[in-house]
């Protein structure tokens, strides 16, 4: 066995908390007295919670993040191995049902500091302007309480903070360019570009994706090993763990990891007083806070609100509309696989590195409204075997045979919009977890428009694969990305929060995660979740004193300015997009 020139790679050094091979976390971090009533308590330090924690800490507030999973040391805890990475997912019991049930866990649910951003593939397209006006434009779903233009400055901020690598010109939605260079293509991207080019479909290579193409400060560049969704040990792919949490800790935030919040506590005055949680030793603790922000994502956020039912709030907190848990969405995520005569080796390069949004918008020629995107994916062997189980019905010698051809296959993902339906929902099951807390029951069924989008997406993707030279094309139906379940809206009768994530019912209870999304477009939601968190932070910071006064329900600042001074160290003002978006109207 040959050894590397620099010796074997020994990994973690004692006494250091590493986030990637270079970035060190400042330890020990600040700890608040357990009896202190902090300004803000955030439940869940994932995509939304991580960004929010960082901004509130930087603005000088006393803020505690309580996270159910571990505070990862990436050098110690993460592995470059598919089966060994299952701990990154929310693996505790949930019940799933309905006509077309959603699989959870590894498919869409993170656990631990960084949350879902630890295991996302990192595609970071913006939502299109039309996504915010789906009801006005297409008569389906619901309009957002904000427009694209409200969110746009936060997209621009987060694209720098993450930072997002992508093409100099991105032609869809609100056309714009990226400051940081796109990635080289792997075998899968090469095939997507080849197929699209043959068919005259516009396609962008190399992003937008939350992966460093070059090194920035203490974040190294990508090494193209393809284990993005197993947690990026390299530190090149963004998770809030590596992009925002270090800055939060540096500015005095405390993160209590391995601590599961099971109840939000209500006071007598119609305001929340804090949360109760099981700490890392299983002891019951209470954290008092002036403002509580729930950022547990689309299943755990509704579960916590429902499990916090108490006198006066018998149906759960913030649920006077009866919509907590409802309008849950996933995206159509069918994987279309093509076998090629030559070798592809799709395990190399990030799974996410090229896409087309040419079929994103409503097209009157279709028999459905809204649309889909087509993206590269690069399943590793176990995921690929499960795809072949469904796509080809492979088992036995047939499974062994198709797996021996692993390197000949290419996988492309359809990402299609599923509309918000009231019957797709999160409720409480009768069963309980090991703490005795009722678990979530998820019910999901596809509706006609959703099925038509899936069909059209699979057909178009198959066409692209054949055009690129595939000799056989098969597909695996599946879903991607949870969102919704505690949606924002202008009407308190049909939504859980206002446009800032403030619950309509309880003045000092907020929600800040993917569950806020009223609709979802055909874009991966990660960037939008983080951008919404940055926007919510500006509201919370501008109105902090008002929010914390018990006697006040109203806030002074209804249109807070965009704070450009709260970005993590070394990200703001760096990188200049050659092409700036100029949106008409």
């Amino acid at each position, binding site marked *: 066995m040959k050894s590397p020139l620099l010796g074997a790679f020994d990994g973690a050094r004692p006494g250091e908390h590493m986030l990637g091979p270079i970035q060190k976390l400042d330890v020990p971090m600040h700890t608040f007295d357990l009896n202190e009533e902090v300004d803000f308590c955030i439940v869940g330090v994932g995509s939304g919670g991580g960004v929010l924690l960082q901004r509130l800490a930087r603005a000088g507030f006393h803020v505690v993040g309580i996270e159910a999973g571990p505070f990862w040391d990436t050098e110690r805890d993460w592995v470059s191995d598919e089966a060994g990475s299952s701990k990154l997912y929310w693996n505790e019991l949930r019940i799933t049902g309905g006509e077309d049930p959603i699989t959870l866990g590894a498919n869409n649910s993170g656990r631990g500091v960084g949350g879902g951003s630890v295991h996302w593939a990192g595609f970071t397209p913006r939502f299109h302007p039309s996504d915010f006006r789906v009801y006005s434009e297409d008569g389906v779903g619901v309009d957002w309480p904000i427009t694209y233009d409200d969110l746009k400055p936060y997209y621009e901020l987060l694209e720098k903070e993450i930072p997002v690598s992508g093409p100099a010109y991105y032609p869809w939605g609100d056309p714009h360019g990226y400051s940081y260079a796109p990635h*080289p293509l792997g075998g899968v991207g090469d095939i997507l570009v080849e197929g699209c080019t043959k068919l005259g479909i516009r396609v962008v290579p190399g992003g937008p994706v939350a992966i460093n193409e070059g090194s920035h400060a203490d974040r190294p560049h990508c090494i193209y090993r393809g284990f993005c969704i197993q947690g990026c040990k390299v530190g090149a792919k963004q998770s809030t763990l590596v992009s925002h949490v270090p800055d939060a800790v540096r500015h005095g935030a405390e993160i209590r990891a391995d601590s599961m919040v099971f109840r939000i506590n209500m006071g007598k005055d119609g305001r929340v007083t804090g949360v109760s949680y099981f700490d890392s030793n299983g002891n019951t603790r209470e954290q008092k806070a002036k403002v509580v922000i729930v950022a547990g994502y689309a299943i755990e956020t509704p579960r916590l609100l429902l499990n916090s039912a108490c006198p006066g709030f018998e149906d759960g907190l913030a649920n006077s509309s009866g919509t907590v848990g409802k309008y849950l969405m996933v995206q159509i995520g069918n994987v279309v696989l093509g076998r090629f005569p030559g070798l592809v080796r799709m395990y190399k390069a990030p799974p996410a590195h090229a896409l087309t949004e040419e079929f994103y918008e409503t097209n009157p020629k279709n028999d459905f409204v809204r649309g889909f995107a087509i993206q590269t994916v690069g399943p590793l062997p176990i995921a690929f075997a499960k795809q072949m189980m469904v796509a080809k019905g492979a088992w036995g010698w047939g499974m062994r045979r198709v797996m021996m051809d692993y*390197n000949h296959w290419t996988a492309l993902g359809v990402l299609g919009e599923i509309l918000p339906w009231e019957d797709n929902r999160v409720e409480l099951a009768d069963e309980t977890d090991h703490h005795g807390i009722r678990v979530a029951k998820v019910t999901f069924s596809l509706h006609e428009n959703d099925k038509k989008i899936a069909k059209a997406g699979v057909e178009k993707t198959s066409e692209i694969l054949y055009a690129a030279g595939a000799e056989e094309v098969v597909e695996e139906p599946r879903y991607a990305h949870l969102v919704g379940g505690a949606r924002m809206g202008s009407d308190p009768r049909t939504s859980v929060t206002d446009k800032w994530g403030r619950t309509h019912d309880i003045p000092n209870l907020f929600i800040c995660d993917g569950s806020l999304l009223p609709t979802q477009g055909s874009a991966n939601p990660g960037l939008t979740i983080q951008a919404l968190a940055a926007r919510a932070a500006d509201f919370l910071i501008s109105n902090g004193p008002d929010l914390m006064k018990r006697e006040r329900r109203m806030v002074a600042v209804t249109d807070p300015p965009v704070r450009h001074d709260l970005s993590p160290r070394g990200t703001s003002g760096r990188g200049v997009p050659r092409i700036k978006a100029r949106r008409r109207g």
Partner: protein
Amino acid sequence: MKIKNARKTVIREDAVTFQVDEGRLPVNPQTGKPIRPMAQPGYYPGYSTLSQQAFWDEATRKVVLARVEQVPPIRFFSSDEAELMQAVCDRVLPQDDRDEAHKIPVVNYIDDRLYNQRIDGYRFEDMPPDHEAHRLGLQAIETIAREMYGKSFTQLDQTEQDTILKSLHDGKPTAAHDIWQKMSIHRFWMLLLQDVVDAYYAHPYAWDEIGFGGPAYPRGYMRLEGGKPEPWEVDERRYEWEAPAGSLSDRYEPIGGPRHHKQQTPGQEGTH
């Protein structure tokens, strides 16, 4: 570093089972002769992911080497169940083309998951918990074997065994209907398949077989396009093989039979 025989801890005392049953071997279509069991089937002769372990980070090395060297003992299944599960897994994902030293102990890994009650984060509402589902599934398979052939599944020939498993794949089992009242047949079939591929394709021997690069931190890859091998990878060298004549699994038919279309597969890892 010597990689020990991972198979050793599997309880198979019956010496007869170690003999190669030629009828179960894949066949060379040119000669019509069985292909002898190999240390490494597949089209990448000489390729070894484990040979690159000095280039892996320590945490990954520990996890992968433990998978090879420290095969978990059988603790969940009873010895009868383990024997039956072994016979089932030998058909669900046959390894007759591997020599004894290089068979992958999938039953031990499945047992370990069930013993430690590791789940994937959800349970379908029409399914019992995973560990119960596996027990019920084994009972059902044994019941079908006795109804159809009057013998234990472990005593059947490969065609009979495949016939039973194919009936599960097709969603048309001939017996054990009381058990299929308690759980969805096609969800059980997918649970079983998924657990088997989870175990098999997590093993470095399987990576060598399919030409997968294996762990790649901190070194990474440099040849991204055109399917080109890295300097330590090898080019594909294909050979023709046919599944044994008595087997029924080297064909591709949808789970649940034609026109069966369910929108979801359990345990699918995230992709995008």
